């Protein structure tokens, strides 16, 4: 069946929503990994059956799950059930799919081992969780992982083992990175479809970075950002970037939802300009680009950094068909009274059908879908645990 699969990560498990291409009738499957926080789940673009999941618990730490059949069965790569590798010394099987160890070797330039803490002191980098998994655009066994404390890891063996791309954390600004309220997290990874060595990442609260050499070296790309909440509002790093999105046919144009401000770059992030325009508030978390219209973008304005819910009790997606500045409210099918949910940064996604399907999940447990570019919306499911992430796959 040709159709769409929506991977939903929640505070208490993962859910898989599937439909045919009409996107009218949905099947809800789950919870998978019940009781665990699922920060993110994403499928390989070259093998839709291959799905990677970040499963986490403050009790028991990080788990990486993988499916090779579209979520019917799961296993932890590198552990029992997946031809476990054997330690050559002990002879014991190795369970390394959840082993994320920061690289402090001299071979990678001895990256800095501390970053700024809430009280201004230096604090050791400590792994907490994987926020985002970004499968390679060409190889289902290669996946990038953005983690807290902020770092970028990569597996090239299907999730058996992970290795840090330490050049990012070794950037000379690293000691000045500091956590936002949600932690020091690398939450956004975008691979340039036209040049896989060019990768964009975003960190709260350090800002955006770009590599042009496959992750060996990185440069901050925050020129033009203005953040009143840091001592130098135009500093090279320290900005709380919430999300970046691109259209695959136009990877030099980036759209950003910052802590405040919606921004746009047309030179690969080298410079940014504000395109908040007539939005009722330009605070928010996710941003997405229509898969068929590179200048059509979506945000969900949130009241403020102090009030993390939609304004006026009304859930409205805002769409710009002009790449920013001119925005229209999309509310058909969405609650327009007594609604006080938030939409987190990884909780909005688009499919690649025509017309474009747009999907988002709320902290109230609803997952909304539009099969008409956002003109109208329906709730696929209403009472899930708080939604952390939504990813659409064409299958």
């Amino acid at each position, binding site marked *: 069946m040709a159709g769409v699969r929506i991977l939903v990560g929640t505070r208490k498990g993962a859910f898989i929503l599937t439909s045919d291409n009409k996107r009218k009738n949905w099947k809800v499957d789950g919870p998978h990994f019940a*009781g665990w926080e699922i920060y993110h789940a994403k499928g390989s673009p070259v093998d839709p059956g291959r799905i990677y999941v970040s499963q986490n618990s*403050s*009790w*028991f730490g990080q788990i990486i799950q993988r499916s090779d059949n579209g979520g019917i069965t799961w296993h*932890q790569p590198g552990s029992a059930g997946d031809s*476990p590798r054997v330690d050559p010394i002990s002879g014991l099987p190795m*369970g390394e799919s959840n082993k994320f*160890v920061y690289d402090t070797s001299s071979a990678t330039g001895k990256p800095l081992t501390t970053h700024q803490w809430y009280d201004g002191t230096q604090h050791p980098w400590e792994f907490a969780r994987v926020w985002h998994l970004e499968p390679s655009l060409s190889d289902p066994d290669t996946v990038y992982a953005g983690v807290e404390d902020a770092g970028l890891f990569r597996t090239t063996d299907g999730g058996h083992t992970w290795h840090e791309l330490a050049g990012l954390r070794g950037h000379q600004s690293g000691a000045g990175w500091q956590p936002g309220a949600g932690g020091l997290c690398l939450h956004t990874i975008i691979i340039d479809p036209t040049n896989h060595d060019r990768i964009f990442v975003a960190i709260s609260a350090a800002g955006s970075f770009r590599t042009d050499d496959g992750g060996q070296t990185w440069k901050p790309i925050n020129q033009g950002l203005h953040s009143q909440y840091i001592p130098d509002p135009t500093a090279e790093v320290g900005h709380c970037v919430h999300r970046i999105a691109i259209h695959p046919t136009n990877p030099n144009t980036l759209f950003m939802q910052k802590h405040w401000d919606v921004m746009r770059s047309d030179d690969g992030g080298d410079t940014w300009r504000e395109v908040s325009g007539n939005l009722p508030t330009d605070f928010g978390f996710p941003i997405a680009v229509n898969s068929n219209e590179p200048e059509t973008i979506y945000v969900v304005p949130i009241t403020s950094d102090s009030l993390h819910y939609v304004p006026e009790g009304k859930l409205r997606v805002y769409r710009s068909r002009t790449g920013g500045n001119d925005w229209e409210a999309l509310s058909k099918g969405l609650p327009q009274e007594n609604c006080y949910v938030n939409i987190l940064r990884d909780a909005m996604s688009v499919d690649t059908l025509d017309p474009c399907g747009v999907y988002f999940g709320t902290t109230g447990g609803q997952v909304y879908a539009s099969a008409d570019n956002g003109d109208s919306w329906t709730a696929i499911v209403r009472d899930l645990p708080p939604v952390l992430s939504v990813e659409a796959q064409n299958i």
Partner: protein
Amino acid sequence: MVRVQLPHHLQTLASVNGEVTLTVDTPVTQKTILDALEARYPMLRGTIRDHLTAKRRPKVRFFANEEDVTHDSPDDVLPDVIASGAKPFMVVGAISGG
């Protein structure tokens, strides 16, 4: 054989129901029990103690013979009732409120 009682989520990860039984090197300690547990169930590595430092995760507790031995040395010898399997070694997730 040493009996180990795992919390619900780790039972799920390890695909076991109830207690697991392990052959453990002597002397029987927290460390030797966890070594044997992780060798038998490698998917549990990193969930109870850190991969590199072997430090216990903060919200995991260890009970033995009705005693909280969480803060004892991992190399302390555990009571005979644990080594003999008369009572289970318990891995417990800390209680949360709310």
